[in-house]
């Protein structure tokens, strides 16, 4: 292992993978990755295409489980509890670990129903209480002022940037501890991207955020910690300030300076 993981107190760790390896069929996509995601911080995962960033992210909420030929070794814990264990059913895991995807993916239903979707699924809240949670979720992503009076309108009518904030609200509504974000601004224009990054900043502290991005500047702008993945292996994991200014690994430096081929 060539990681220089910052030392953390166990109570400060939200998510942890130990000796995690993942295969899809015969192809190994993650190779012996041990990483500890600090609680309440923004952790960026960067790396070239095909380095296993998204696959690693999807291990944390077990979204790889349904993929044909998927095989995993190692262990992942949420707050010290094995995510594959009997103490953490998968729907409970996914309530506690939410996710935002590359492309905005609102469901073909109304704005209000989109935000309430997770609440309804998990049987959280009733009637007015649910409405209240929808409202506060929309407020926390700054959408309430824009669409608060048209909750019945189809979500598909919103702009891409609004849609991405809507699905963020949908994820926040079930009050997760961790939010996984898989290149969440890759489909957005620069202004919407900036807006989204501000939201991520604002959410940190209350929620642990793991952000996969291929945008190095974005990682530097919003993250507290950064992990550099290459070919399925964790090359370096450090405070973002340190990693971006003085990478300790040659591979990381090459990637950051664009010498990576």
């Amino acid at each position: 292992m060539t990681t220089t993981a910052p030392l953390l107190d166990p109570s400060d760790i939200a998510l942890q993978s130990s000796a995690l390896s993942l295969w899809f069929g015969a192809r190994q996509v993650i190779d012996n990755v041990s990483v500890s995601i600090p609680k309440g911080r923004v952790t960026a995962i960067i790396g070239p295409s095909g380095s296993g960033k998204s696959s690693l992210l999807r291990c944390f909420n077990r979204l790889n489980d349904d993929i044909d030929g998927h095989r995993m070794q190692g262990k992942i814990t949420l707050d010290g509890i094995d995510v594959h264990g009997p103490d953490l059913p998968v729907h409970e895991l996914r309530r506690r670990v939410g996710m935002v995807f590359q492309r905005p993916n609102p469901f073909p239903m109304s704005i209000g129903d989109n935000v309430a979707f997770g609440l309804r699924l998990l049987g959280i809240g009733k009637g007015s209480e649910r409405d209240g949670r929808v409202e506060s979720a929309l407020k926390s992503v700054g959408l309430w002022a824009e669409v608060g009076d048209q909750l019945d309108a189809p979500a598909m009518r919103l702009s891409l940037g609004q849609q991405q904030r809507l699905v963020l609200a949908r994820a926040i509504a079930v009050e997760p501890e961790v939010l996984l974000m898989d290149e969440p601004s890759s489909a957005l224009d620069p202004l919407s991207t900036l807006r989204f990054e501000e939201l991520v900043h604002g959410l940190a502290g209350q929620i642990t955020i793991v952000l996969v991005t291929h945008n190095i500047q974005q990682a530097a702008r919003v993250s507290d910690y950064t992990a550099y993945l290459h070919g399925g292996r964790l090359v370096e994991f450090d405070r973002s300030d340190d990693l971006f200014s003085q990478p300790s690994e040659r591979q990381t430096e090459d990637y950051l300076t664009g010498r990576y081929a």
Partner: protein
Amino acid sequence: MKVERGSTATWFASSSLSVLLLVTAAVLLLLLRNGLAPFWPADIVEFEVRSAPGATTVLGTITDEDAQAIIVDSGDALNTNGRYQRIALASIASRSTPADAYVAIGSDGSLRYDRAGRDGAALDAADITAVSTSYSNRLGAGEKLVVAVRQFARFVSTGPSAGGVLPALIGTVILVLLMSVVVMPIGIAAAIWLSEYAGNRGRARWVRAALTSLAGVPTIVYGVLGLGLLVHALGGAVDQLWFAQRLPAPTFGSGGLLWAALTLALLTLPVVVVSIENGLAGVPRRLRDGAMALGATRSEVLWKVLLPAAGPALLTALILAIARAAGAVAPLMLVGVVKLAPSLPIDGEFPYLHPSRQFMHLGFSVYDQALASGDAFDGVARAWSCALLLLLMVGLLNSSAILLRRRLDSRQRSLELVATA
């Protein structure tokens, strides 16, 4: 293939497209013209004919004419020579369109041509009640239109005893609806299994191959299948079990609405399953992921996200099924369609819908009127009208489904925008 402006390929493509449009327009126009013509009041012509003993007069409408002779439809009543009279052109002394000539349509659909100037008592003597009388020769275009609309309304709202096709229309609609009710749930279930649970190996491959082959089976084969499997085997068993007291008279053991609907459901199942499966496969992967990431189980994803998102595809499947079912007449002739059904398959008597009853069908009426009618001229004319009506009915059913689909689509329109962004 890249088509360039002015190239042979462009020329070929555009000309075949125009041929296609022209043929479609021609078929529609022909159907409209011939289907509606019988309802338009024709001029009533009076011929004076030189014949051996002296002169006779023939009153009626011109059905057909050629270089030698005219065929006149002189109506049903009081006619010893039959309804149609062939008059050689050479023997015609005079022809006129008297203003006092009228056509009286009886409650049994029969026609009588007469002139008001003559003895009006003849009408009553014929022992029919005239339901409408029109002096066709006096009518202007607007009045003729009113008469035509009235005739058409009569045609679709009365039974065969009054010259109408209402039972056939009702039979067709009920059959298609019943077929839809049967085929949609089965089709949805099969499509869900294929797209969500079966993968692409072993059994699923066989099921797909079977569906593709089924889609290519000639419709008459389904008729035989329905007759042997549903009517005789299944219907016979049902009779033995529950209707034994009525045997040997069959209840479900002879062709009827239920078996016809099931036969059509079988016939349309392949196209329904394939189009729903495509619809489910077309739902973007990220919607599925999004629901899963919120903690939805597989069946919750299916019921709350996939099926609603595939709503337009379900309606497309329904439209295809209706189109295919309405066009299949051959199998129906084996499993329950009759020329003349004594009673409707739906009425005010409990249980209101009578699935064991034989029924009438517009598609069959087209065949029956055109080929098996005692009156060739009238029969062919009615066949056109039935064909037009069948087309209108399918068009109406389809456009309501399309309208519904458009409403669903508008909810998801930007789905495609995002997908291509």
